[in-house]
């Protein structure tokens, strides 16, 4: 048994030999994009207004605009592929997408699997959407109560272990929010930015975001891990730096009706050009 398992382990080591940074840059994915004249970017389809489908079924949103900007800068055609929280990293690893911009929190264990170039383009914390009728006041109110969540969100585990909530995780936002409406859970735990947008949409009149946001975490887009320190990663760092510097992200935030965040204002100031344009 032990021999078999160490055999499996050895196999694993062989497969995961793509050591980042140290390996020579082959720029495989980068070159492949130019060969086929197209960049394939994974985006969300159920995360309004970052990535969602409009009434005609087209993918639109803040991150789709960012993806379009990437394609325009590369001078390539853009192909969007909808991804989910629970499969986005796998899609990138398998080469189904060249990169993704999909509302992903930048976490240490995720950096071991995909290449997350800095600086982060956004940030959000964890909060819950709960019915006003319940009048929740603290995270402790969730203890031993059914709380709807989404498969793939990193804070499910935190809320479960820290506050003892019973997470019922659905595969999509739509199912989870429907379950909340159907009163199958007392709250929907998710990114505060997304909940804020839902509340602002006017479709959630009887609900509120009553708790103090926790675990504020920057969002990272991702390129293949092997190319993080190569052209692709460096290029995306540059894109993100400029999005912050020239205020693109703040404009997009306004365009998509997202509540202005202090994070973007601060980053915009931090990266400001030291020679002021007249």
């Amino acid at each position, binding site marked *: 048994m*032990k021999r078999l*398992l*160490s055999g*499996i*382990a050895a196999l*694993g*080591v062989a*497969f*995961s030999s793509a050591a980042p940074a140290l390996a020579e840059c082959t720029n495989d994915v980068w070159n492949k994009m130019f060969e086929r004249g197209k960049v394939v970017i994974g985006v969300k389809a159920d995360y309004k207004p970052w990535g969602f489908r409009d009434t005609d079924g087209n993918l639109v949103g803040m991150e789709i605009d960012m993806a379009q900007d990437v394609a325009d800068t590369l001078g390539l055609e853009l192909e969007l592929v909808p991804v989910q*929280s*629970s499969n986005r*990293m*796998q899609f990138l690893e398998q080469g189904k997408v060249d990169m993704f911009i999909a509302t992903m929190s930048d976490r240490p*264990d*995720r950096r*071991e*699997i995909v290449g997350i170039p800095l600086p982060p383009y956004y940030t959000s914390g964890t909060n819950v959407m709960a*019915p006003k*009728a*319940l009048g929740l006041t603290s995270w402790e109110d969730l203890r031993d*109560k*059914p709380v709807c969540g989404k*498969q*793939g*969100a*990193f804070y*499910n*585990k935190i809320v479960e*272990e820290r506050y003892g909530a019973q997470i*019922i*995780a*659905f*595969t999509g936002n739509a*199912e989870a929010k*429907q*379950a909340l409406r*159907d*009163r*199958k*859970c*007392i709250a929907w735990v998710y990114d505060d930015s997304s909940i804020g947008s839902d509340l602002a949409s006017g479709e959630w009149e009887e609900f509120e975001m009553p708790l103090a946001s926790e675990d504020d975490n920057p969002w990272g887009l991702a390129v293949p891990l092997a190319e993080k320190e190569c052209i692709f990663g460096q290029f995306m760092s540059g894109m993100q730096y400029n999005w912050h510097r020239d205020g693109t992200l703040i404009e997009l935030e306004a365009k998509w009706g997202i509540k202005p965040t202090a994070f973007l204002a601060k980053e915009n100031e931090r990266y400001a050009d030291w020679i002021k344009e007249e």
Partner: protein
Amino acid sequence: MEDFFRELAEEAPRWNFIWMYEERQQDKILSGIWMTIKLSVACVVLSVIIGIVGAWLQGARSRIVRAIVQGYIQFFRNTPPFVQLLFFYFALGQFTPVVTGDDGWTQYPIITNVGWAIISLSFFAGAFNVEIFRAGIEAVPNSTQEAAESLGFTRLQTYKEVVLPLAFRVSLPALNNNLVNLVKTTTQALALAVPELLYQSVTIWNDYPSAQYPTMLLVWVVYILLVGILVLGMHRWERGMRIPGYGT
């Protein structure tokens, strides 16, 4: 043993067999396997009952009863099980009685997500089972049924004592196939957040990306074993029920 896997996780960062050394994750896997077994057993038993009853009703004298069975088969056989699960849980689930919790807001439906998964998957597989049993029944020679009738058997008795035992033997290979499919289809209960093996596994590899390969491997092995046991049992049954000279 635990230390071995701890070391392995450090040496090979993609091969973190976390559920071999961390109790919380281990509990998730074990409860997931147990839920999958419960779902499978409940669905297999119910769907076979539905198949037997349905096939009997298909031969009913009343045209209305036959039409209802036919409608049921068409409805459940022609729509994807995934859609049925969502429809049952979210649409029909709203019309079932609920118990309101202490907080005055939460409603605990009498039929839980697990209940709906069992109902929906059983009806799905049951629709196929009806057709499988029908094929078996049609393979029983008319003369045999007439012989039973002439001996004074009622319709139910003929079905129970003569037709079904023979038809069952003919149906078994096809039934076997369908039940194997049913066990695998239980993974789709994930859509209703039923905490079966796949749900728990997806949760684990989302929480610990390093545990992805080992957990996928585990899911694979568990299903091979579960389906293997089912197939083995069915084959034994098939052999045990063999009548020399009848059928295959």
